[in-house]
C-alpha cells in the first residue's frame, strides 16, 4: 500500500511545507493514498476510531483538571471537591473524565473481542496485536493511578492492595513496595508519584497508538471475511465511506457518555470514595472499577499470595501469545464452526469472572470464580490449539468482492 510516485499537491501551503519537510507524503506512504480499506468492514471496526477519540477526551479533560487538582495527601480530596463545587464546569470535566475512562475500557474490550472473533491477530498482524496488548497494559496502569488521585477511601485502599501485589515477590518484595510507596505505607509521596505518572502515561499511550496505526497500515485492516484484499475491487477509500459510517458509532458513544455524565454520573463509581482516605479503616468490601473485575476475580481465586499475583499477571500476559496459541490458519470465526461457539463461551466466562469479582470471596462465588479462572486459561492453552487442529473450517470465498457481488451470492450464503 505504498503511496505511489511523488504526488503533486493542489494546496499551496501543503506544497510549501512538503518541499521543506515531506511530512504529507510520509503519512501517505504509511497509510496509502486515500487509505484503501476493505469494503466489507462492519461496525465492529469502528472501535479504533472511538478509542482514539476517547483518548483525546481523556487527555483534554485531564489537562484542565490538572490545573485545579492538588496531588498532596492533605489536600487532594478537598481539591477534588473544589473542582466539583467551585471551578466553573469542574463537575462536567471531572464526570466526563471519570465516565470517559469507562467508555474507553468498554470500547477497548469490544475492540479486543472483535480481534479475537475475526482473528485479527493472525499473520501478518501479530505485532499489531502485541502493540495493542501493550497499550492495554499501559491503559490499566493509567486508569489505576487515576483512580487513586481523588484520595477517597476506595482510592487509598485500591492503592494499598495493588501496590501490595508486589510484596508477593520473594526476597525483594517488601523492598519493592517500600520503594513504590516512598514510605512505609501508601501516603502523600505515593500519591504524588502516581499523579506524575498518571499525567505522563496517556502521552505514552498516544505514542504507542501511532505505532499501532503504523503497523495496522502496513497490511491494512483485517475484515469480517478474514481473507486478504487482492485487488482494487476489494477496497474503498476510508474517507468518506468509513468516516461517515464510524461517525454514527461515535455519535452513539457520545449519547451513552452524555447519559452517564448528565443523569447517572456516579453509577459506575463507589460510594466509599466520597469518604476521605483513612489509613486506619479499610472499607468493608473493596471492589475495583468494573473494568478490572474479571482480573480481580482471577487474583482472588488462587488460594496463595504469590500464585494469585502470578496468575493475575498471566491472565493479561497470555494475550501476547494469542497469535501462536491459536493454531488455525482461518482468521474469521464466520468460517470456523467450532471456534465460534468457544468464542462465545469465553465471552460468557469473562462476564462470569466480572460478576465474581464484585462478590465477597467466599462460598459459591469463590467456587464459581475458581472454575471460571480455570476455564479462562484453558481457553487459551487447551481449547485454542486443539480446536485449530481438529476443526474443519468452512470453504473460504475467493475474494472479498465475491460474496458481495451477485456472482458470489452462493458463497455468501454458505458463509452465513
Amino acid at each position, binding site marked *: 500500500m505504498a503511496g505511489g510516485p511523488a504526488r503533486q499537491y493542489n494546496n499551496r501551503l501543503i506544497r510549501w511545507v512538503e518541499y521543506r519537510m515531506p511530512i504529507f507524503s510520509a503519512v501517505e506512504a504509511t497509510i496509502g493514498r*486515500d487509505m484503501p480499506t476493505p469494503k466489507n468492514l462492519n461496525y465492529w471496526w469502528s472501535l479504533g476510531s472511538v478509542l482514539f477519540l476517547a483518548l483525546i477526551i481523556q487527555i483534554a479533560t485531564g489537562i484542565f483538571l490538572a490545573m*485545579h487538582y492538588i496531588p498532596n495527601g492533605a489536600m487532594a480530596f478537598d481539591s477534588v471537591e473544589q473542582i466539583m*463545587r467551585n*471551578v*466553573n464546569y469542574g463537575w462536567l*470535566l471531572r464526570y466526563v473524565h471519570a465516565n470517559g475512562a469507562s467508555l474507553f475500557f468498554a470500547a477497548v474490550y469490544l475492540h479486543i473481542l472483535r480481534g479475537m472473533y475475526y482473528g485479527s491477530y493472525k499473520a501478518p498482524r501479530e505485532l499489531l496485536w502485541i502493540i495493542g496488548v501493550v497499550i492495554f497494559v499501559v491503559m490499566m496502569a493509567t486508569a489505576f493511578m487515576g483512580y487513586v488521585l481523588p484520595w477517597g477511601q476506595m482510592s487509598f485502599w485500591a492503592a494499598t492492595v495493588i501496590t501490595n501485589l508486589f510484596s508477593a515477590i520473594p526476597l525483594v518484595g517488601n523492598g519493592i513496595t517500600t520503594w513504590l510507596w516512598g514510605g512505609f505505607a501508601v501516603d502523600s509521596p505515593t500519591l504524588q508519584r502516581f499523579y506524575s505518572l498518571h499525567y505522563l502515561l496517556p502521552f505514552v499511550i498516544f505514542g504507542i497508538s501511532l505505532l499501532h496505526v503504523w503497523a495496522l497500515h502496513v497490511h491494512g485492516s483485517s475484515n469480517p471475511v478474514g481473507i486478504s484484499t487482492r485487488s482494487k475491487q476489494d477496497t474503498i477509500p476510508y*474517507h468518506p*465511506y468509513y468516516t461517515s459510517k464510524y461517525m454514527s458509532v461515535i455519535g452513539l458513544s457520545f449519547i451513552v457518555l452524555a447519559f452517564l455524565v448528565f443523569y447517572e454520573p456516579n453509577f459506575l463509581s463507589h460510594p466509599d470514595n466520597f469518604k476521605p482516605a483513612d489509613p486506619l479503616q479499610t472499607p468493608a468490601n473493596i471492589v475495583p472499577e468494573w473494568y478490572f473485575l474479571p482480573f480481580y476475580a482471577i487474583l482472588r481465586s488462587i488460594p496463595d499470595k504469590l500464585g494469585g499475583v502470578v496468575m493475575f499477571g498471566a491472565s493479561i500476559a497470555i494475550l501476547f501469545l494469542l497469535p501462536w496459541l491459536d493454531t488455525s490458519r482461518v482468521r474469521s470465526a464466520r468460517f470456523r464452526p467450532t471456534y465460534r461457539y468457544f468464542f462465545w463461551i469465553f465471552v460468557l466466562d469473562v462476564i462470569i469472572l466480572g460478576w465474581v469479582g464484585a462478590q465477597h470471596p467466599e462460598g459459591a462465588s469463590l467456587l464459581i470464580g475458581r472454575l471460571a479462572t480455570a476455564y479462562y486459561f484453558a481457553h487459551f492453552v487447551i481449547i485454542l490449539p486443539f480446536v485449530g487442529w481438529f476443526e474443519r473450517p468452512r470453504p473460504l470465498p475467493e475474494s472479498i468482492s465475491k460474496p458481495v457481488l451477485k456472482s458470489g451470492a452462493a458463497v455468501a450464503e454458505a458463509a452465513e
Partner: protein
Amino acid sequence: MATTAPHPGEEGPRRDFIFVAAISASAVGAGLAVWPFVNSMNPSRDVLAEATAEVDLTPIEEGQRITVLWRKKPVFIDHRAPAKIEEAEGVALGDLKDPQADADRVQRKEWLVLIGICTHLGCIPQGQRVGERLGDFGGWFCPCHGSHYDTSGRIRKGPAPKNLDVPPYSFISDTTIQLG
C-alpha cells in the same frame, strides 16, 4: 479522491446547503464543547467569593498610608494632610499626561484609595513605608522603570501611560470602606 458519480439534479444548491448546514452545526457543537474548558480557567466561585474586603479607617492617622490586600492586589489607602490635598487640587489639567481632576479621584478629600500597581508593567510603587522614595511629586515612585506619581496618584513623569487606578469602593459608615 472519493467522488460519487453526480446524480442529475442532486448537485448544486441542495448539496451546498447540506455542506453549509453540516459545517455550521459542527462549528456550533465545537464551540459548545470548548466553552466549559475555557470557562474552567476563569476565577472559580471561591475566588469570586473573596472579591470584596472591608477596611476600618479609624486607626489611620492623618498623613499615614496603609496597604491592604483586595483580590490579591495591594490597595493603597492614604489619609491625606490638607497640604497634600491642596497640592493635588492645584495642578492644571493641561500639565497631566492622563488628565483627571483630583475631585474625580476621591469620594472624600482626605481619603485617597488607589490600586497600588504601576500602570506601566505591574510593579508596586514605593512611598507606602516611611523612608521610601515618594518621587518628584510627593506621591509614589515606581522603582522598576522610574514612573513618578503625584499626591492624587496621577502619572507625572516616566513611562507609565495612565494614573494609578481607583478601585470601586464605598463608605459603608464614616469610618469603614468596602472595596469591591
